[in-house]
């Protein structure tokens, strides 16, 4: 198999994930997009592991670690999103504008 196939797949998946992170309003959907980006990285890792015939299987081990961290991240992320939702009754990121310079009319 040509190495280009999995690599291009990974790049495209990453680009889609990036678009999702930047374009979506709902925080949970943003989290999903982040998962897409992480999976793109995983594809890369596995492909290179196979390509380089790594005797330590570093690529696969790192893939497993990334999956684990992604699970932890999604757990914490959801907890935070839920807390935000309880406090503000919204999970839409553009509505959370506490960091803005305060003017009349801004939340």
């Amino acid at each position, binding site marked *: 198999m040509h190495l*280009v*196939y999995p*690599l291009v*797949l990974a*790049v495209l998946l990453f680009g*889609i994930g990036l678009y999702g992170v*930047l374009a979506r309003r709902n925080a949970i959907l943003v989290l999903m997009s982040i998962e897409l980006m992480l999976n793109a990285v995983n594809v890369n890792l596995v492909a290179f592991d196979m390509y380089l015939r790594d005797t330590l299987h570093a690529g696969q*081990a790192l893939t497993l670690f990334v999956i684990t961290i992604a*699970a932890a991240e999604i*757990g914490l992320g959801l907890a935070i999103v839920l807390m935000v939702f309880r406090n503000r009754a919204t999970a839409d990121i553009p509505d959370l504008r506490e960091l803005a310079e305060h003017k009349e009319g801004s939340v």
Partner: protein
Amino acid sequence: MNLAAAEHGFLSPTGAEIAFVLIGLVVLGSALLVVTTRQVVHAALWLVVTLGGLAAEYLLLTAEFIAWVQVLIYVGAVVVLLLFGLMLTKAPIGYSEPADRAARIPAATVALGATATLVTVIVDAFRTAYLHLGDDTVGTTKVTGESLFKVWVLPFEVLSVLLLAALIGAVVLSRSRARARSDRKD
């Protein structure tokens, strides 16, 4: 390299390559739906398709163990968690996210720019590289497990601590919320 490129041309794809490309198209299409669909629950379901497709791609890359872990954790756990999250944020089944055109154009520009750059660079660098998939024992549970517990045991243990911390963190976040609510009742 030149030899490999000469042996394996792009115009005479193997069966595995054809399967990889087809599944890849499914993955990309469903991923695109994840980030574009207006129905949030649909997005979660399309995510299942994407992740499942990726598991198949791992199988094609002979990373057997990774593929099953992908199915178990992502499709099994993470998506369920996300669905719970959607429900808890009271997103109805038919909830459609409001259109946000203003954000889409810059987002698409940035994403397209990044993709184009990366594709150009990667194709330029790896167009002759060839992946020999003859040996299908490198991705088995036995081999992965051995390397994981022989070579990578320390990061593995550290990671388990991280998971524990994340668990405690999630518990604390939800508990403080519960206590705050009970305080308010008093």
